[in-house]
């Protein structure tokens, strides 16, 4: 069923806000999505009714809290088609990538080994590995992009050809170009060159927008974040093949991830608990469950169809403005909802400020992708990103704002 945006918008309180008497036009969902009331209610219910800590509590509240938390794990596993034993909750996608860097990369890679990543990665999926490379002396290679913003698969094939690539870190969907990468293809390339290559995917921008099947992608690990998929802040996850997770070293140590400790030895707990230390994000997990159920009710196919169509209209609207250049693929079938653009003669800060004065929220800056900015030959871009609660009504204010910025600032 197609998404009925006007009805849907009622579920998102912030969208009803006015700014200086103007309708709020939120086009920054690639940075963080709005949160529906159902998610807030789920968290509230925990705080008002079952407030307590999880695990090993023998009383009713603690049992309820544990149940909420563990249900979130199975909900998320179902949503991305993975095994719940491989679902590790983190505070955000960045921690999920770091978990992979500490618990696998730093324990396995050294001089002579190669880690493959791409020039379009978000810093979260790049710097943890660069940092490890600096400490441990392995090599990092980067897949370049083609002029239409796709990963250069021929180059990728060359980069893995010597069989030294043991780990691949790649985004499923770019937060700047919008590109939907063929991660299945990359995994096959990498494994063809070296059977035991571990493939880690940054799915942060994919999970909110696309139907994702971890099993079908055939990758080893997959990072995501709650606050971009209608969920609360403060929760993310790393989804790992359980067989791989079993072999990974612990990362954060402390309560809950331990089976036994003496003064000089420690026995770790089972997966996935071995990777979750300390009191978890209980309310946030309850909120994430509600967000998943909200998305499931709409259906991810419908979400994707809506996004694809609206992004098409957004691209048309932007390219029709004089002096505006858009980055990234024009083929909508390999494109997510983030659209980065430049306005000739106007600094992105000034574009953003003018849009803000018209109630339109877009992000400006390097979007935590400095290497990609260098590839594109820019310092920063403005980025509009639509989501399921946006529709074509949101495009005219964007266009007017950009035109006003041109008129006001361009010298």
């Amino acid at each position, binding site marked *: 069923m197609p998404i009925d945006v006007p009805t849907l918008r009622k579920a998102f309180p912030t969208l009803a806000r006015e700014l200086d008497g103007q309708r709020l036009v939120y086009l920054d969902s690639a940075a963080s999505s709005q949160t529906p009331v159902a998610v807030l209610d789920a968290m509230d219910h925990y705080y008002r009714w079952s407030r307590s800590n999880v695990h090993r509590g023998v009383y009713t509240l603690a049992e309820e809290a544990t149940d909420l938390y563990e249900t979130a794990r199975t909900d998320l596993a179902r949503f991305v088609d993975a095994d719940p034993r491989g679902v590790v909750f983190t505070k955000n996608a960045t921690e999920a990538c770091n978990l992979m860097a500490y618990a696998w990369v730093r324990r396995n890679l050294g001089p002579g080994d190669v880690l493959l990543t791409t020039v379009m990665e978000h810093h979260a999926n790049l710097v943890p590995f660069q940092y490890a490379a600096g400490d441990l002396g392995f090599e990092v290679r980067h897949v370049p992009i083609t002029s239409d913003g796709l990963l250069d698969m021929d180059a990728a094939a060359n980069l893995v050809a010597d069989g030294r690539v043991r780990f691949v870190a790649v985004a499923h969907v770019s937060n700047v170009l919008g590109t939907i990468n063929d991660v299945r293809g990359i995994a096959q390339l990498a494994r063809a060159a070296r059977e035991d290559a571990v493939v880690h995917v940054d799915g942060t921008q994919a999970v909110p927008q696309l139907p994702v099947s971890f099993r079908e992608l055939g990758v080893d690990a997959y990072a995501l974040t709650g606050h971009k998929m209608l969920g609360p802040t403060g929760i993310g996850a790393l989804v790992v093949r359980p067989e791989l997770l079993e072999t990974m070293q612990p990362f954060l140590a402390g309560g809950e991830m331990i089976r*036994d400790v003496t003064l000089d030895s420690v*026995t770790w707990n089972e997966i996935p608990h071995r990777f979750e230390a300390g009191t978890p994000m209980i309310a946030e997990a309850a909120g994430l469950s509600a967000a998943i159920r909200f998305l499931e009710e709409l259906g991810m196919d419908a979400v994707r169809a809506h996004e694809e169509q609206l992004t098409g209209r957004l691209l048309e609207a932007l390219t029709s403005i004089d002096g505006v250049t858009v980055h990234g693929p024009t083929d909508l079938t390999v494109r997510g909802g983030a659209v980065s653009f430049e306005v000739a003669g106007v600094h992105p800060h000034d574009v953003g400020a003018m849009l803000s004065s018209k109630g339109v929220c877009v992000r400006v800056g390097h979007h935590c992708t400095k290497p990609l900015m260098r590839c594109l030959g820019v310092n920063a871009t403005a980025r509009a990103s639509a989501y399921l609660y946006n529709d074509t009504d949101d495009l005219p204010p964007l266009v007017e704002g950009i035109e006003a910025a041109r008129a006001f600032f361009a010298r």
Partner: protein
Amino acid sequence: MSMEDLYQEIILDHYRKPQHRAPVLEGESVHVHHSNPLCGDEMDLRVRVVDGQVDGIVFDGEGCSISQASASAMTVAVAGRELDDALALTEDFRRMMHGDEPSRPDDLQDGIAFQGVARFPVRVKCALLGWMALRDAIETYERGASAHTVEHDDDRPPSG
């Protein structure tokens, strides 16, 4: 929770008057020691196997009422059974603890009284301690060994 939800009369009977509770077993074939570091439960289980059957079985240990009563009920339910049959019954109990309907309620005998424990996840491992020790004892025996020590805080599906 109310006490009755968890502590059925049958459970309390086993807790107060445990069956087959003893520190030694004459002619013992296999002895396993299990402990659950999370709650401090300890369990010694000894089995005497004759003609592929559980000819004798005793347990000894320390732990909460649920773990002690469940071990007691287990010894009664498996005494005299073929080893394979005892393993199958163990699996039935394990699944019951995870919310499945038991397929052999009669064979579980008093073990059936523990069905309600499934609703108290923290206590599931207590109820399973004796049964998991039994499974390990049989597997240890079939491997040709006579003793095994295990630390665990959870059950897993059968290894085979």
